[in-house]
């Protein structure tokens, strides 16, 4: 019961946050002077193509770009009627991309799922790598295991993601025969799901996952190591050792469980970084996620597309953070039984 109440509260805050975030995003997107169409009109006028101007003017009123900003926002969200009545994010209409001359939903389509997939894979990678290495580094602290993992971790933190991506792609292809570019072999694009397609996607995922996950894994590993070291120096560990508990059991039974909390709570910090990384890496590696779409949309002021992509990215991290908060409550009885108000 407690849990359901907490979950409901968490969902409510998430929705409120999302509303604020949508305003923020809309303002940022509209910071540059003018819009895609007014720029186009100016260009058409300058080159003396009068017939195009009328169409662009028509589109401006059609997408209510000639109204004040707050009205545009309300229409975009779908709480105020536009020229076609209520038609905004809430109604599932994500707007029109001027650059591609198609509905935003058509352009991002598959990319949404691939984005989720890439980020999910990266998060999994972070946990799979950071958990054993962090515990190992703590258990064997001040030995070569510790130093090597620390060094590799630091290097992972310091190397710019996109360069790591380029390097790994190049050498992965040269020596391991890993495929270059994209998230699936070209022949599977637009094809229905099949075993071969899944396989192709998985093989293509290796390098991006590694690249996006490395810095997150390094940070996570260091934190887990520090937490573990704190726990390991406590008297109960010594007691366990004195009573003859097997080292592996001693390690996993209590200290790991204690050190695990911040590990889960940290997903809130991890996810934004991960999504950032995936946008960058997608652009460099030409993955069919929403990263490249965001970049082109921002460069050409294709505002509805850019705003939608930003909204989606924000939603992704917010949902992730919420899940981690809920997991934390399930995991830690101290939080579960109301040590925290709210």
């Amino acid at each position, binding site marked *: 019961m407690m849990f359901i109440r907490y979950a409901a509260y968490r969902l409510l805050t998430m929705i409120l946050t999302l509303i604020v975030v949508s305003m923020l995003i809309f303002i940022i997107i509209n910071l540059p002077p003018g819009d895609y169409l007014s720029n186009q009109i100016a260009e058409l006028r300058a080159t003396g193509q009068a017939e195009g101007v009328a169409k662009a003017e028509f589109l401006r009123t059609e997408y209510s770009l000639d109204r004040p900003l707050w009205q545009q926002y309300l229409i975009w969200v779908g709480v105020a009627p536009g020229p076609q009545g209520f038609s905004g994010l809430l109604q599932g209409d994500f707007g029109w991309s001027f650059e591609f001359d198609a509905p935003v939903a058509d352009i991002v389509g598959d990319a949404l799922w691939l984005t989720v997939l890439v980020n999910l894979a990266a998060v999994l990678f972070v946990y799979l790598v950071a958990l054993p290495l962090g515990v190992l580094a703590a258990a064997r602290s001040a030995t070569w295991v510790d130093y090597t993992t620390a060094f590799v971790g630091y290097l992972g*933190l310091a190397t*710019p993601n996109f*360069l790591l991506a380029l390097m790994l792609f190049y050498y992965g292809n040269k020596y391991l025969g890993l495929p270059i570019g994209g998230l699936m072999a070209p022949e599977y694009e637009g094809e229905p799901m099949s075993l071969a397609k899944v396989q192709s996607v998985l093989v293509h995922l290796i390098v991006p996952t590694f690249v996006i996950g490395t810095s997150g894994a390094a940070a996570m590993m260091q934190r887990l190591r520090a937490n573990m070291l704190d726990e390991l120096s406590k008297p109960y560990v010594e007691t366990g050792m004195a009573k003859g508990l097997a080292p592996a059991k001693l390690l996993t039974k209590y200290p790991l469980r204690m050190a695990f909390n911040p590990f889960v709570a940290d997903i809130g910090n991890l996810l934004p970084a991960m999504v950032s990384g995936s946008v*960058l890496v997608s*652009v460099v590696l030409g993955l069919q996620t929403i990263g490249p779409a965001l970049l082109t949309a921002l*460069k050409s002021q294709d505002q509805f597309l*850019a705003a939608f992509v930003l909204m989606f*990215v924000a939603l992704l991290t917010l949902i992730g953070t919420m899940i981690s908060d809920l997991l934390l409550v399930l995991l830690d009885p101290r939080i579960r039984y109301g040590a925290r108000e709210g």
Partner: protein
Amino acid sequence: MSTLPDGRFIDDAPYDPNVDLSAPERSDMDAPNWVLVWRKFRKHRLALISGIFLFLAYMAIPFAGFISPYTPNERSADYLYHPPQAIKFWHEGEFVGPFVYPTTGSADLENFQWVYETDTSRPMPLQFFCNRTEYKLFFLIPADRHLFCAPEGATVFIFGSDRLGRDVFSRISYGAQLSLTVGLIGITVSFILGIGFGAIAGYFGGWIDWVVNRAIEILRSLPELPLWLALSAAVPSNWGPVSVFFIISIILGLLDWPGLARAVRSKFLSLREEEYVRAAEMMGAKPSRVIRRHLLPNFMSHLIASATLSIPAMILGETALSFLGLGLRAPAVSWGVMLNDAQNLASIEIYPWTAIPMLPIIIVVLAFNFLGDGLRDSLDPYT
């Protein structure tokens, strides 16, 4: 000290039975805080070396023109994509001092790439303190003296040249001017915002605290890079390189403050209840004075350590933005702008030296990390 006939050593100073036994330790106990911090910091070898390295790197910024043999946008049209040249000392078993072999380039029309042939028969000694292209020392004083430059008829590309025949080494040392300072300006912005909002929220509490806290939560839950991209896409394209540089640094700082504000706030919440704060308030100190004189100095050192740890994120952020073409723009030289050239696989494969700017980035970011870790460990000398 003197030696007795039987070989024992003895102190010449007269024995004083009244001397305070704890005196040797006393000097330690009474040492000012910064001495204790320094003693502890000195033991972190890696942090110390990183600190010295960063200090030298920042000191070298105004002398970029002097250190580099070329100016950043100087093109050698005959030497496009020139591979790195080694500086040699011995020619055919004979010591000649630092010299380079001259090279001649030709276009390989089969593979469409430039190939260079080295003429190993003529060693051409480097010139030192020579007069070449003009630059501005300290960004103000016109000067034309370079630490070293190529002899007439040869080139000295330590790290090779890029697609326009510009020297990569010179560009790296000029690029440091922007790449290294972007983090400093960014952290200043983030510091002002973070301490300001954190202090107000922590000190006054109530609804202000609530509002600031929500703002922090929202900003922290958003992915940074897409927002950076969106903000820097809003920078007008007709702005000059200097204004673009400042606005980009400010954008980097704008999204960084929530972490700092959170730390400041939680610290303030606990310190606010201390007696000395109460005392200051009773004596009529205004909130701004209590915050500045009594509360902030308490953990300024911690803030500095955490700032050191967040500078690398900004350096990497600038690199990423410039790399994607939304950060600093072409006539400006930064490491990210340079890497923009190494964007595709072909250049990594055929001209790997265009990716050399990644080395200074990695080294500087590592150095900041080590320095920050060392500072954080040593700033609490009493533990």
